[in-house]
């Protein structure tokens, strides 16, 4: 057993396999940092002495069990869900559970479902990715508590049971609490293969427990990246150049530098920054700075050039995608009917309610960052590259994120903060305005796709061919990872090879480098690939004269989990039994990565000139449900996010820059257009799946199919608002 001391004096007991694990990940030790203080938790630290048993939990002498969460909380509820998993396996009383966040980069915190070497929260994988490791850690701790109790009670471990934060000697009823045992238990041998509780014994799994972060988010005390402060800090306001990648050629700061509070005005990699005593002083002075930018190839980028590039891309051969099978050419020739269509979607912006910010302190060799991040590894990397230092020494403070949706992987704001702090010789907080947040986002790629679906004499699909042109996510966000996987990238997943089992399929991906930054976005590739497939299936059903839900059911009849979600959604929504003037559209989505099957029914009323979304129904099976309340809310929120994408969201480019500057032009869903939503979650099996993004995935197609049902118009470009429909 290895024991290491952290700076804060907490003892970390390393598991027996750590060395092997380190070697296994290729020893790049990608941005690993040990010996870091954990950032203070907001959800309650135990008082008094606390023993940290492993990477995932600590037990205090006051009986409080603290789940240590290295995944980040952007609203998805993973901090509550992960705490629940630990409590269930350990046998802790729920009221005694707390959690705290850590930004340590240790191997135990690398999500095995994601990219090598990164401590990263992505892909709706916090719980599925760490379910095994958390249970293992909790089970090992439980056995150490039992071993200590056995000695103190003079009892056989076989007679001891663990529940409600106590180890109880069943024959006599005598017990010791976790707090009483923690110090002794921490000295016990760490069992290499602890016994995991059976499904039935995991009493807290499947319970709709309240979110632990709600009280903090109701009384205003939850701290987000933008709220965190460094001692003696200055503030910076930043403006970025017209195009993505612009660099400053000259700065006229004659007036600005004389303004109150102004400390420093300097160029940053893509723009100019004013550092002042107060943020408002920096904002006002920045308004008086006049800078010019060097010409950049992206200066002439516009929505037209993007469309032209994508259209040209579709004429390129591209690469075949996984899931391709059979002989599409032959099948199309023998098809009774072939449907052809073109689909497109614009760039989208995450538009998190918390604009990006970063506070940095660069003092001597010690660098600290305070920000909302989904990946301390990535942000340490950005800062280290900017400063030319070792990333492992960088300390990061992170609490709650004011939304994520794929946005919080750092880069520009992190780089700006460390460069400014270094130059100022004092900590600097960079706060982007909403305008900058939209201008230099990391957009969901725009895409153009062309599909053909061949139908047999019975109207069922015999061939599906889909070709897409868009930018890559790994290529832009994880170039080192992409270099190894090339040409594999996210857009290739879920293009063809769906659970519908179409006998002949061919997918082709053409990478088109686009002139803005591209990154992850809630639902990623499934949003655009799903839009095509689910719209085409709907069109095929209508062409065949078969009810669209019955058509899907027929294709999915061999998969009971799929037909179950379709049937429940139909029952809840009253499929085909709606009021006069109301119309319904359906969509289905299945993904092995997310372990999901999801059926959505959208009900609308009115005409294309005044269409109202009346109701959303979603039924989701993503395997084992840890917390039905969290799962239901995540799917509901994902559907509403997708509805917003479908109705009104678009980023258009002119002169290299997004034309949308704030919420009046980047229009996201508001309450008045939000329908009632009913979500039902079906729990299946003993392995948890994902909920955070799945609701978003088929949402555009569900809305498009409802629009078709109501108006007879098949719209294949989002957002539907402004592309043939006006929503009320």
């Amino acid at each position: 057993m290895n024991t290491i001391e952290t700076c804060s004096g907490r003892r970390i007991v390393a598991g027996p396999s750590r060395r092997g694990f380190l070697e296994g990940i290729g020893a790049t030790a990608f941005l690993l940092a040990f010996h870091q203080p954990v950032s203070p938790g907001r959800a309650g630290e135990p008082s008094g002495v606390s023993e940290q048993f492993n990477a995932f939990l600590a037990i205090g002498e006051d009986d409080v069990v603290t789940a240590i969460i290295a995944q980040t909380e952007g609203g998805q509820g993973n901090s509550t869900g992960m705490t629940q998993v630990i409590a269930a396996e350990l046998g802790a009383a729920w009221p005694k559970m707390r959690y705290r966040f850590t930004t340590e980069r240790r191997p135990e915190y690398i999500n095995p479902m994601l990219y090598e070497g990164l401590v990263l929260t992505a892909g709706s994988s916090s719980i599925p990715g760490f379910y095994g490791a958390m249970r293992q850690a909790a089970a090992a701790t439980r056995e150490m508590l039992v071993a200590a109790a056995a000695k103190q009670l003079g009892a056989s471990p076989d007679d001891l049971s663990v529940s409600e934060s106590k180890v109880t000697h069943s024959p006599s009823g005598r017990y010791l609490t976790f707090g009483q045992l923690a110090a002794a238990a921490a000295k016990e041998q760490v069992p290499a293969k602890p016994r995991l509780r059976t499904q039935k014994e995991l009493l807290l799994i499947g319970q709709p427990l309240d979110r632990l972060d709600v009280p903090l988010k109701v009384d205003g005390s939850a701290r987000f990246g933008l709220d965190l402060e460094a001692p003696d800090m200055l503030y910076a306001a930043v403006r970025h150049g017209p195009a993505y990648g612009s660099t400053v050629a000259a700065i006229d700061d004659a007036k600005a530098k004389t303004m109150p509070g102004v400390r420093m005005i300097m160029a940053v990699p893509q723009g100019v920054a004013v550092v002042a005593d107060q943020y408002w002083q920096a904002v006002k002075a920045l308004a008086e700075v006049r800078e010019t930018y060097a010409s950049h190839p992206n200066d002439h980028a516009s929505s037209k050039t993007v469309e032209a590039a994508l259209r040209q891309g579709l004429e390129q051969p591209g690469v075949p995608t996984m899931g391709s099978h059979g002989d599409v050419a032959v099948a199309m020739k023998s098809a009774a009917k072939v449907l052809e269509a073109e689909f497109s979607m614009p760039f989208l912006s995450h538009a998190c309610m918390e604009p990006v910010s970063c506070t940095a302190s660069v003092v001597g060799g010690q660098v600290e960052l305070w920000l909302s991040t989904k990946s301390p590894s990535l942000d340490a990397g950005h800062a280290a590259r900017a400063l030319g230092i070792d990333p492992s020494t960088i300390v990061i403070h992170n609490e709650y994120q004011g939304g994520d949706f794929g946005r919080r992987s750092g880069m520009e704001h992190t780089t700006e903060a460390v460069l400014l702090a270094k130059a100022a010789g004092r900590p600097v907080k960079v706060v982007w305005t909403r305008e900058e947040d939209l201008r230099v986002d990391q957009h969901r790629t725009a895409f153009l796709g062309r599909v053909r679906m061949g139908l047999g004499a019975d109207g069922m699909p015999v061939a599906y061919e889909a070709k897409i042109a868009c930018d890559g996510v790994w290529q832009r966000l994880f170039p080192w990872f992409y270099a190894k996987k090339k040409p594999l990238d996210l857009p290739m997943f879920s293009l063809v090879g769906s659970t519908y089992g179409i006998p002949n399929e061919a997918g082709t991906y053409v990478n088109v480098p686009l002139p803005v930054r591209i990154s992850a976005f809630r639902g990623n590739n499934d949003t655009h690939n799903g839009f095509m497939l689910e719209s085409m299936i709907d069109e095929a059903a209508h062409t065949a004269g078969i009810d669209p839900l019955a058509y899907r059911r027929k294709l999915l009849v061999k998969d009971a989990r799929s037909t179950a979600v379709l049937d429940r959604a139909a029952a809840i929504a009253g499929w085909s039994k709606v009021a006069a003037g109301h119309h319904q559209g359906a969509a289905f989505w299945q993904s092995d990565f997310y372990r999901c099957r999801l059926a959505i029914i959208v009900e609308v009323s009115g005409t294309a000139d005044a269409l109202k979304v009346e109701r959303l129904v979603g039924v989701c099976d993503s395997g084992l449900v840890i917390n039905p309340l969290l799962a239901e809310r995540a799917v509901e929120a994902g559907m509403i996010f997708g509805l917003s994408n479908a109705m009104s969201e678009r980023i258009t480019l002119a002169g290299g820059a997004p034309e949308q500057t704030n919420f009046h032009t980047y229009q996201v869903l508001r309450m008045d257009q939000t329908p009632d939503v009913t979500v039902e979650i079906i729990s299946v099996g003993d392995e948890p799946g994902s909920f955070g993004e799945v609701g978003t995935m088929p949402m555009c197609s569900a809305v498009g199919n409802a629009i078709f049902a109501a108006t007879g118009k098949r719209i294949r470009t989002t957002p539907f608002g402004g592309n043939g429909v006006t929503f009320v």
Partner: protein
Amino acid sequence: MMLTVNGQERVLEGVDPSMPLLWAIRDLLGLKGTKFGCGQALCGACTVHLDGQPVRSCQTFLADVEGSKVTTIEAISGLVAEAVKSAWITNNVPQCGYCQSGQIMSAVALLETNPKPSRDDVNSAMSGNICRCGTYPRIRAAIAEASKHLGR
């Protein structure tokens, strides 16, 4: 200049009168519960009560609030506020939570003047507050619950 924030008289020395109330609250007074979202009164994240009325503090300037009473999420109290906060908790409304201070301030202001709002009243009063996580159905449910509780 002087203003009363959460019941305490606060003197702000040498401040720029064009500074939005938001930044005075957050950066000069250290009350971080009021959030910056858009800076243009488009999202409602910065909603506070000014002499009892909900205002967007990002577009409310210090020059215009001399001597006023400001209440922020940290100190919002009274029967309506307690009913709203309690309903927010029992309904597990927040997700990321960033917009929720503003949502709660708007909801309290609504129920102070209209204790039994219709669905249209709620939509109309709350549509200036954006929630990117999409907690709108839960906000509607929480307002309905708070309204019901206050009607008892």
